[in-house]
């Protein structure tokens, strides 16, 4: 290593990984329902698509996590978005295709994608 730029390159690469270990409250949490019902309905491809999209866009303040059954199994796969200080938003019947618009609209621009929410489905 000869320059600061080389050090910076390693730091940026690692920073992304280590940010995962930041459990502080000011981060946006995206939680995927991954109980049997969720997995059966296709939650895993949704989770993978979310992770891919978040990493691609390098969203440092977003944590993708998973949870058990939320209770409305018929609407799985379910993804919930917790933005600090706001009411959580529940997206239902998720597919990998819907993920991109939720990431770009909701996580990046802060606009809830109404048509995919539980309110629209009910």
């Amino acid at each position, binding site marked *: 290593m000869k320059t600061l730029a080389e050090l910076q390159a390693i*730091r940026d*690469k690692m920073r992304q990984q*280590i940010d995962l*270990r930041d459990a502080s409250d000011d981060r946006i949490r995206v939680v995927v329902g991954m109980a049997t019902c969720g997995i059966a309905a296709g939650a895993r491809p949704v989770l993978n698509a979310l*992770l891919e999209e978040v990493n691609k866009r390098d969203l440092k303040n977003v*944590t993708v996590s998973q*949870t058990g059954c939320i209770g409305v199994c018929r609407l799985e796969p379910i993804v919930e978005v917790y933005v600090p200080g706001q009411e959580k938003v529940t997206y239902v019947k998720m597919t990998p295709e819907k993920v991109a618009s939720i990431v770009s609209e909701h996580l990046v621009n802060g606009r809830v994608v109404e048509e995919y929410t539980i309110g629209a489905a009910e």
Partner: protein
Amino acid sequence: MSFIRSHILVCTGTGCSSSNSEQIIAEFEKQLVAQGMDKEARVVRTGCFGLCALGPIVTVYPEGACYTHVTVDDVEEIVSEHIVKGRIVKRLLNRNVAEEGAVTSLTETQFYKHQQRIALRNCGVINPENIDEYIGVDGYAALGKILTEQIPPQKVIDVVKASGLRGRGGAGFPTGLKWQFTHDAVSSDGIKYVCCNADEGDPGAFMDRSVLEGDPHTIIEAMTIAGYAVGAHQGYIYVRAEYPIAVKRLETAIGQAKEYGLLGKNIFESGFDFDLELRLGAGAFVCGEETALMRSIEGYRGEPKTRPPFPAVKGLFDRPTLLNNVETYANITWIFNHGPEAFAAIGTEKSKGTKVFALGGKITNTGLVEVPMGTTLRTVVEDIGGGVPGGKQFKAAQTGGPSGGCIPASLIDTPIDYESLASIGSMMGSGGLIVMDEDNCMVDIAKFYLEFIVDESCGKCAPCRIGTKRLLGLLTKITEGNGEPEDLDTIEELCNHIKQSALCGLGQTAPNPVLSTLKHFRSEYEAHIYEKRCPAGVCKALIQYVVDPAKCKGCTRCAQGCPTGAISGAVRAPHIINQSKCIKCGACMEHCRFGAISKQ
């Protein structure tokens, strides 16, 4: 394409390693593969989280769930429930340190809430065996900035001075001043040295070990900065051989730093060369004393020398030498990354920053804690430490190891900083903090520390070699019930002589445990001498185990449990303890179900 979405952090510090954390890691790796999760979750070895009493500790991110007392058998469940299904395994969460219910995240516990981590900032967060992870948390950024911008050494020293950092090894000498003295000293051939004192020998202190095990690169970076500031090109880390994990991780870290060109010739193309070597101590307590440590590095028997000349003028191989303790170095890069003002804003007027304490003894949360200077002893013991277990009364806290003293319960609201501790007859020391309850005899405690000193005295000067031995003799006489009234005066006189005439810091402070207990717990000494009684029921010569005939049911359990056959009596009739055969082990008291046996 797949992404690692979960990190499983397993503590591999000495505490958790001794309770099988290596096997837990192996099982995690096996289970992740078996359950098809090895592409989504990764196992990371880390240093100490600080909650050693609850080990082995496993933390799973991004949820930050902290699992305690994890066994190899729990691993399958953590993987299948938490990693696969995202359900936190509640039964393994850390209930002990939470006030109510199960707190998932370690940072939300009472244990962590009052803490502020600077020296321990990376312990339990990064993998100490991976230099990239250290770089990922701004590692080597301070060194890179200083060297590439060619910041003048005097400016570097000014930053350390402005931070107000004082030596964390015990005496609390201002670190910036020490750097200045070494910088200003003239070496006949231009050679100077930088040393790190990692010979942590105080009974009960293990913060330096945790830093070396959890974040070795921070020491390497800080020593390199120090070398640049004082004009040294060679550094030595003097670490005790009793810390094998720390030694191994330091060796790994030094190897990685050399490979990256962060140690060696022409670092960051700045023309600055710096190299580091390890020296292993052979277990002598006195080698933690600075002049003895340097003699030992030179290859001689570790014995202190008179000062002055101070090491900054004439130290290792008779060249100007900078010697700082591990915890002191652990603060350096933080100061450069966050600015000296940020550091100086923490703590009290004369004691800046934070201090790490190794909590031990009669305390619920045994472990490592880091608090801002000026935090009261009460906060550390009651809020962070969780108080004395078993509903017992807090009696005293011992700080500073064999050089320190006991702080009685009446002074529990004393703020912890260098001056306050010194004013009540104790000292900061390296940071061991041993809590004692009503079952501890203060004369016995003083005797314990003195036994340690007598064992570890290097023997070079008479006050320490002979004086502490005589002092121990007097204390032993008192604990055996042969104490005479004039003994207390003799003890005090002898203590003062040793303080004034011993050669090195260890000898001069050796009487502190005796003097401070005598000052705060004189009545206990007097009870031993005048009433031939040990109030805490510890000194064997002064206690008797007796059976209360009214409560004894004659069940014979005590007689069966007695290792010396000292108890006799017929079935269903009150038993009797033969005092001449009794060795006062207390086994009978533990065996009795009716509370019929008591200590008198």
